[in-house]
């Protein structure tokens, strides 16, 4: 009797193990495929950009964001020490260097006038906790270098005459540029890392769709960018290939942007397994704004700080 019970238990265990094995093997690997298979697709009339929309549940969105976060190297865990912590978003600060071309309106800034193109060295210091970005551009204008440093942190924006200007009396000039807060914040949240973070923060407002066979995540931003809707398109590797932003308020047309990311790799001198796009092309209002090749990314949470100069705080208060 005891033997029979033991054998029955063994068979049950075996059957359970086989069932579990097939359940795991047959489970689709990526969030993109999961979503396509888990819900029936509903064809809807569209302007041509959308050919296929899939209703998505919160779990579909969460699964897709996790897959995209893992593809980027943003969602990570470590077995060092044998702990069982969950995967967390490990990206706080990063620094990116690139070179390419930036564009600006022509002298008359009239529609149809050719844009001016400048050979540009690009350097961005990026922080998400707190949200901040310092973009340093060195453009070659008429053969001479023209250097600008644009900074945003939370709801403060300013230009620096040198890195860290305005923090110590007599050391450079920090010029408040509060009107630029939104457009500079938008750069931060439309980077692939920012898209994942903002989409997770959007919670139930984040939706999935399938357009031309690709997964698209749509969600609203928050705070000063609450009027902006982001649409992020994933490539077959679940990397963020395109990010479009649309402001619902026509007065905020400057916030209508489109950024394409490609050639993902770990571009760090010190490897981190964090991927970054190797090529970034950004448009604003349909016009080319920036086209750069990324030369290096330090994603190892480097020492980057963005203290707000006192005169910028005072300007914001008035």
């Amino acid at each position: 009797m005891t033997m029979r019970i033991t054998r029955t238990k063994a068979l049950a265990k075996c059957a359970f193990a086989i069932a579990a094995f097939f359940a795991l093997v047959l489970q689709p690997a990526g969030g993109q495929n999961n979503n396509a298979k888990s819900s029936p697709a509903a064809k809807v009339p569209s302007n041509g950009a959308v050919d296929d929309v899939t209703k998505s549940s919160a779990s579909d969105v969460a699964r897709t964001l996790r897959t995209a976060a893992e593809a980027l190297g943003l969602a990570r865990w470590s077995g060092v020490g044998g702990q069982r912590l969950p995967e967390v978003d490990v990206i706080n600060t990063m620094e990116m260097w690139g070179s390419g071309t930036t564009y600006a309106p022509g002298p008359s800034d009239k529609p149809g006038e050719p844009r001016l193109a400048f050979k540009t060295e690009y350097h961005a210091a990026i922080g998400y906790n707190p949200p901040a970005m310092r973009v340093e551009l060195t453009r070659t204008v008429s053969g001479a270098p023209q250097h600008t440093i644009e900074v945003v942190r939370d709801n403060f924006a300013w230009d620096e005459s040198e890195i860290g200007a305005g923090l110590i009396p007599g050391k450079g000039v920090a010029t408040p540029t509060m009107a630029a807060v939104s457009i500079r914040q938008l750069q931060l949240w439309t980077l692939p890392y920012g898209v994942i973070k903002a989409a997770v923060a959007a919670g139930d407002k984040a939706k999935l769709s399938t357009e031309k066979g690709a997964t698209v995540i749509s969600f609203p931003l928050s705070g000063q960018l609450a009027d902006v809707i982001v649409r992020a398109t994933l490539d077959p590797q679940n990397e963020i290939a395109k990010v479009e932003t649309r402001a619902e308020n026509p007065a905020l047309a400057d916030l209508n942007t489109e950024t394409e990311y490609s050639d993902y790799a770990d571009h760090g001198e010190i490897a981190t397994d964090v991927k970054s796009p190797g090529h970034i092309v950004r448009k604003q209002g349909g016009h080319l704004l920036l086209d750069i090749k990324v030369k290096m990314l330090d994603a190892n949470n480097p020492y980057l700080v963005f203290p707000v100069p006192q005169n910028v705080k005072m300007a914001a208060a008035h």
Partner: protein
Amino acid sequence: MACRIRFCGIIFATILLCVLPAAVFAQYGGPRMDHENTLPPTPVGPTPMTADGHPDLTGLWNGLADNLLGVPNQMHNVGIEVGPDSTRDIHSGAQIATWPLQNREKQNNEQNERAATLLRRMGSNRPIYKPQYWQRVKDFDANSNEEDPSNNCMPAGVPRMGVPSYIAQTPTYLIFVYPGQGGLIATATSYRMIPTDGRKHTDIEDLDGTWNGESIGHWEGDTMVIDSIGFNSTSWFDQLGGYFHSENMHVIERLHRDGNTLTWTATVEDPDVLLEPWTTTPRVALLNPDPKAILPESLPCSERDFAHVVTKEHH
């Protein structure tokens, strides 16, 4: 081949930063921080008091055992609180995206180490240096395999040495013992003898700069406050980050006992290099409950691996 060389680099870097045996912590015994979260331990039991009415800090404060060695504790030390339902940065209050661990695939050592490096460095609580030093901090950090004084077996110094593993308290002195340890930083055994009568510091001009400086303690209510000056400029003041300082660094440590826990913080003032004072994340040590527990002898620190390091990957 390139991959093998890189992998070897990881191995050697790991060995380099563990020149003292990690097995030391295993000998301490006692409970550890729950490795499914990075929450500090909940205090248990009464706080014993001395005859002169102060909390008794005496004890072996290594109950967490791996306060330098484990990724969860290192995340705790930089203010990343991974709880059962969410993750947040206790300094900024920022919520951090978290995904339950599932279908956990085995990562190789290289992937584990790279992830650990990111995890223990993701906190927002960073000292604000004067802008002219921002690049130097970054360079020290990026090249820490060569630049970190602890990698050459130098003392950690105050406040990098963190929470003492053993405290003996008399009416007039505190004795702190810090065993040599491997893991995040490699340090030799160190001790401090701290008068607690709140006496005046020696004139800074008469002090030779040292790793631990001149420390003088006093009680503020139930909190022991230790004020230290007179440092050399060789040490770094936090475990990671390349945070150098000048000889004018001033450190204020605070130790508060609550039951079987000891909370330690240090505030660093250095107007030569910092724009503003900086305070560590509170670190909570747990009393070792084993009445027979002792601090074992630490093996000598000996660096022999630099020649084999082939990448800049580091802790």
